[in-house]
């Protein structure tokens, strides 16, 4: 489903990723770990095309991202659900509208939107907050809204950048359980986290990054 072949990404002052090669099979749920600045977020950005690699090839589903035309970028992004590190919730829309946005962008009809949004909010236990605005929610609740938005369109790939960064340990466990449930339905999931507790004893693959270098793979 996702293939990286000798991928490097340089910024002006440093190298974020150096010659990274790995692949993720369809339906897999893997963790990417490493300390802050190790390149986890950059790796995810390369998958959802927010960044372009300087070297190497990336394949996402059936698309070779290096040769992708600009007009096809939205198509690739619609197959991916992203939970951004900073959530990227829209402050002027309520929870329902924030989650619905992912479907509206895909041109879904109103009846479908209503059913799917409430379904996604139920999955993250936020059905009762559908009329609230993001700034009235706690960090953990905002994170769950971001998760609901990422899963609402049933994407084939879900990318989560530090999805438990703002939540307490109990909520973290709940979030990981949610991901497992979604994964069980067939979605491929990549979770970037520095929190080793999240993947301990999960039995999932863990890719380790260390200052842009691939530092091995270990079972969770």
């Amino acid at each position, binding site marked *: 489903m996702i293939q990286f072949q000798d991928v490097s990404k340089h910024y002006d002052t440093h190298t974020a990723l150096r010659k990274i090669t790995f692949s993720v099979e369809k339906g897999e749920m893997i963790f990417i770990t490493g300390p802050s600045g190790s390149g986890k977020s950059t790796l995810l950005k390369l998958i959802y095309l927010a960044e372009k690699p300087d070297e190497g090839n990336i394949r996402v589903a059936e698309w070779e991202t290096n040769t992708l035309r600009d007009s096809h970028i*939205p198509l690739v992004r619609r197959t991916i659900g992203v939970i951004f590190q900073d959530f990227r919730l829209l402050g002027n829309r309520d929870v329902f509208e924030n989650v619905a946005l992912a479907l509206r962008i895909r*041109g879904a009809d109103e009846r479908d939107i209503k059913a799917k949004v409430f379904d996604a909010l139920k999955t993250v236990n936020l059905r009762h907050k559908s009329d609230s605005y993001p700034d009235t929610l706690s960090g953990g609740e905002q994170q769950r809204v971001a998760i609901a938005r990422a899963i609402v369109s049933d994407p084939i790939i879900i990318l989560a950048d530090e999805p438990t960064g703002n939540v307490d340990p109990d909520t973290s466990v709940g979030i990981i359980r949610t991901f497992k449930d979604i994964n069980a339905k067939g979605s491929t999931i990549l979770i970037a986290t520095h929190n080793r507790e999240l993947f301990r004893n999960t039995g999932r693959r863990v890719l380790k990054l260390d200052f842009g270098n691939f530092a091995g793979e270990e079972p969770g």
Partner: protein
Amino acid sequence: MSLRYSFKLAAMSLLHEKWINLLSVLTLAAGLLITSITLLSVYNINIATNRLPEKFSVMLYLKDNLSREEVASVMNAARKESTIETIKYIPKDEALQELKKTLKNTEFVLEGLGENPLPDSIDIRLKREFVRPEMVKTVTAKLKEINGVDEVEYGERFLSSIYSLRFGMKTVGFVFVFIMSVGMIFVCYATVKILFYRREREIETYKLLGATKVFIRAPFLIEGAAIGLFSGLLSLAGMLALYYLIILKLSLTFPLFHAILFPLQLSFVLPLIGLFLGMTGGIIAIGRIRY
């Protein structure tokens, strides 16, 4: 993409950024009002000068004591000119009667003249399309050559002045309208650009969630169009108010104002011009969207 949702987003932004939008609407409406007044002036001058050919005539004053045959010969020679619509002989006695009618109560100025001082004349009306200064000059030069014609008169200066005024007003009017249009497009451009920058993060989120360029652009275009349309309607209201003020109030004191015409088409055209300007400004402002 749901067009209804684009309209919803545009409406939300219009309300949320109401002060910027209101300022743009007022600026545009003022611009459109000034432009409309210019166009209305050009339109009225055009109408007025278009009526000129109906009133315009060339007078051929004949030499004294021409016989009937000689007068007929002059008229036949004049008729050969293809530019002439009608031709009418005015004997000097009839001309004097006409003059007396015109003078009405000041007829006494003619007392003591004794003999009728007026010459026999021929009143010539030219075909509408030939009532132009340079054409009239050519025709009158030819008429003057006819044997038996003493003088030709047609109010050369008046005709030239009217045509210069018409040409000047049209040129100045259109240059002014062009400059105003560019200015108004710039106002829309600046407004949409500001709104675009203010929502940059929101747009970035749309892009990351897979929004197409049309999805991102549509609300801004609708917003630009709405600003333009509201401005058009507001300027139309201003224009009508101004027109009725002139017709109903000022024309009582200055009857000349009563002759001013208001083309009804302007009622449809003004909002459409606003719409067009708003959308044009919007399109330029959004420019290319890069992923």
